[in-house]
């Protein structure tokens, strides 16, 4: 009985993870600009990988294997943002026509909020 519950739980989590991977791949093709595409890819990186590996951890034979798999998730989530940050930074610093692709705010968010309040 407990084996079946574990199997169904694993299958559900894995399928959910794969669906998210599918959607993020669709997003990578659908959006137009490199940085926008990274947002779609980040979806697969976070929840997609997370759900797939948690599903594997549920079906793991003993505690230590499950702990190892969960550790993979933690290290992945610590390191993935670093690479996407560096890619994004490269794009922002080297692209001279940023205005074409995005709205660039010159002021900080707090300043903008203040201005809006003053107008109102």
């Amino acid at each position, binding site marked *: 009985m407990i084996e079946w519950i574990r199997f169904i739980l694993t299958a559900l989590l894995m399928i959910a993870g794969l669906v998210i991977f599918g959607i993020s791949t669709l997003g990578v093709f659908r959006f137009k600009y490199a940085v926008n595409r990274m947002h779609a890819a980040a979806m697969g990186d*976070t929840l997609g990988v997370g759900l797939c590996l948690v599903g594997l951890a549920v079906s793991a034979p003993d505690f230590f294997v499950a702990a190892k798999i969960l550790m993979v998730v933690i290290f992945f989530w610590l390191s993935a943002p670093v690479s996407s940050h560096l890619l994004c930074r490269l794009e922002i610093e080297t692209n001279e026509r940023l205005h074409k692709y995005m709205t660039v705010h*010159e002021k900080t*968010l707090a300043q903008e909020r203040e201005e809006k309040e003053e107008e109102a």
Partner: protein
Amino acid sequence: MFFVYFALWVVLNGKWTTEIAAFGLAFAAIAYFFSCRFMGFSLKTDARLMIRAWQAVRYGVMLLKEILNANLAVMRMVLDLDFEPKPQLVKFNSGLKKERHRVVLANSITLTPGTITCLLEGDEFLVHALDESLVEGLDDGVMITRLKEMEAGK
């Protein structure tokens, strides 16, 4: 940090025997001595951090929730075929004092889909967001308020 090293050792070994535990204690002690000596850890700060470890756990749970919400939002954008994203590049000052907390915030922002930290200089964050709706709550959302609470030591 010592306990983290020890837990890593045991988990990566995959078994729990007296021998592994003894070796683990020894090697964790060596690694901890090394990180105290060369990487700026110290017993005092570690003890202080351990008392507040539950805050880190609470932050992690909240981060999970944020990741889930942001994932759902971005998924909706991808699946809505008429939708065209309006990317934004925004600046804000976090008001956090410690470098450690700023880095945690930057990493959390990048980890939630839809927002990427591009630049972090001093206290100024430069964040790229996929759409206008994702900009809200960047500089006054749950993540930053929780980090400020942690900094104040509550």
